[in-house]
């Protein structure tokens, strides 16, 4: 037992880590994501990106040493704004990914553990209902119900994005529930909720990690569309707001706002997708067992 624990390559996580380290695309993706994360951290600590709301340049200045990406219609520095938006993106991505994963894990595990009982029926019904309300309408409705609260977008995303995680966890828990270790825990009289939280949910972490990365990407992509529709970021600036600003500019032939925000968003989402794919490959129990 202790020998198996000390040799990390014997566990699913040790093997997955080893496999992930040797996946070049995944490592590249992770490196780019970390770079963005440092940029976001710098904004958060006030090291850079502080002048994103200063109106000091001319209208639509071209790229120059002073304004690296030029300026927008009212003379704000586009480079500063796109760097500041990195923080906004991470804020939205992390909040939505963490909260919806927790919610999906809890409700999915409860439904799976008590499958066939009323608690399962209620969770399944709730998932079905939330999945069949059109997403943008739901966000719009939450935004108005919360009367323009800046967190309305987050609330709406968390309350709809957890359902996929919930379904996957439910399926896995139904499988786990019949394993010997659960039976053993039950036999020695461990309370049901302790079994769920201590013994079952930790065994679904590989699903949760992958789902969290997928939700992160979905959240920052949805932000762009919601901000364009006027339902997204309320204060501050984001790539979505910059792109919706640019919809009028591009027809007048000024592309800096559009290109800066789109390129930064694309590279982050692409890197995160690559990271997420490799993680999925590394954590797939079937593939880990085979290698």
């Amino acid at each position, binding site marked *: 037992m202790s020998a198996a624990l000390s040799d990390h390559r014997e566990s699913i996580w040790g093997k997955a880590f080893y496999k992930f380290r040797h996946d070049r695309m995944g490592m590249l993706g992770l490196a780019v994501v970390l770079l963005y994360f440092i940029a976001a951290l710098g904004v958060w600590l006030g090291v850079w990106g502080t002048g994103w709301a200063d109106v000091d340049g001319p209208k639509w200045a071209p790229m120059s040493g002073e304004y690296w990406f030029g300026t927008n219609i009212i003379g704000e520095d586009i480079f500063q704004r796109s760097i500041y938006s990195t923080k906004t993106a991470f804020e939205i991505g992390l909040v939505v990914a963490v909260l919806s994963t927790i919610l999906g894990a809890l409700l999915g595990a409860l439904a799976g553990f008590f499958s066939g009982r009323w608690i399962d029926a209620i969770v399944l019904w709730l998932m*079905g209902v*939330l999945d*069949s*309300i*059109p997403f943008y*309408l739901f966000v719009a409705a939450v935004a*108005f119900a919360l009367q323009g609260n800046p967190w309305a977008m987050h609330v709406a995303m968390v309350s709809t994005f957890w359902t996929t995680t919930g379904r996957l966890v439910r399926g896995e828990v139904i499988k786990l529930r019949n394993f010997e270790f659960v039976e053993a825990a039950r036999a020695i009289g461990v309370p049901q909720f302790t079994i769920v939280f201590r013994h079952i949910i930790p065994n679904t972490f590989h699903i949760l990690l992958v789902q969290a990365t997928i939700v992160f990407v979905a959240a920052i992509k949805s932000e762009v569309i919601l901000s364009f*529709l006027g339902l997204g970021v309320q204060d501050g600036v984001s790539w979505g707001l910059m792109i919706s600003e640019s919809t009028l500019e591009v027809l007048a*032939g000024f592309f800096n706002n559009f290109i800066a925000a789109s390129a930064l968003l694309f590279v982050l989402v692409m890197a995160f997708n690559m990271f997420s794919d490799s993680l999925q490959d590394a954590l797939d129990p079937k593939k880990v067992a085979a290698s």
Partner: protein
Amino acid sequence: MELLQYTLRKLIGGIPLILGVTFISFILMVYYGPDQTFELLGKNATAEQIAEVRAELGYDRPFFVRYGEYLKELATLDFGLSNSTGEPVNAMLARTIPVSLELVTPGFILGNLLGVLLALVAAYHRGRWIDKAIMGFAVVGMSISFLIVIIAFQILLSSSYGLNLFPVRGWNVHSLYSYVMYVTVPTLASVFVALGYNTRFYRAVLVEEMTRDHVRTARAFGISPAKLLYKHILKNSAIPIITRVMFSIPLVVVSGSLLMESYFGIPGVGKVTFDAITSGDQPVLKAVVGLPAVLFVVTLLVTDLLYRVVDPRVSLM
């Protein structure tokens, strides 16, 4: 007879779902939605006038009475007149739903057909460069925001900075030619966005089927690749493909067209819905929220019936 029983049972089973969707939507959009009282009144309204308007809009009645009335309206498909324009809701829907369908249908069909085709090519050449190239493009496609794609296509195809072939925005359709002119750019954008996700999903499904023993046996018998792909692989993968296509229909019709309609200024049902939410136009809201829920339940039923058509092993129990 068996089919009729099955249909009825499925429709009754869908009632909790419809109740749930309408209940949550009702709380969010109607009960906590924007209050129209003061928009309808002039300045300096008296207390009696306010009470009168509130009674007319139904704001003064208890919650469950209003919800019950909503369900009755949904059951009889009679939603009354729009608060904002005074037009009958049913007439509004009859005018705008066809526009949305014309807008999204070509893109939806092409996106799925091309997705299956590319997935077949990729799965057939699994592990080789053509597979890697297609899947690489799929990840790129998945990483670009829909809004960016729309703007980029607009610059490239309909502005003086690009080819300038198509109208920039709007929907002035009166002949086949004008339809093609207005529908091309939105269609290209939605195909581009859908292709990444679709190709990946369909490839996973097809690869799963391709590694089965019966495919190896068929290959050993020297069957031609075209027949193998169509008869042995595609037909056996029909169930997950149908599931994906069917389940995206209700969402594409409402959510999918909303972004394109508001970007291109197209008077479809997505735009009507969005305006109804932001202005609190209750009669319209009740219709556009309730009807997709009904559509969803009907989709569930039709999907189950389609399973039976493509796979005789599925029983309707």
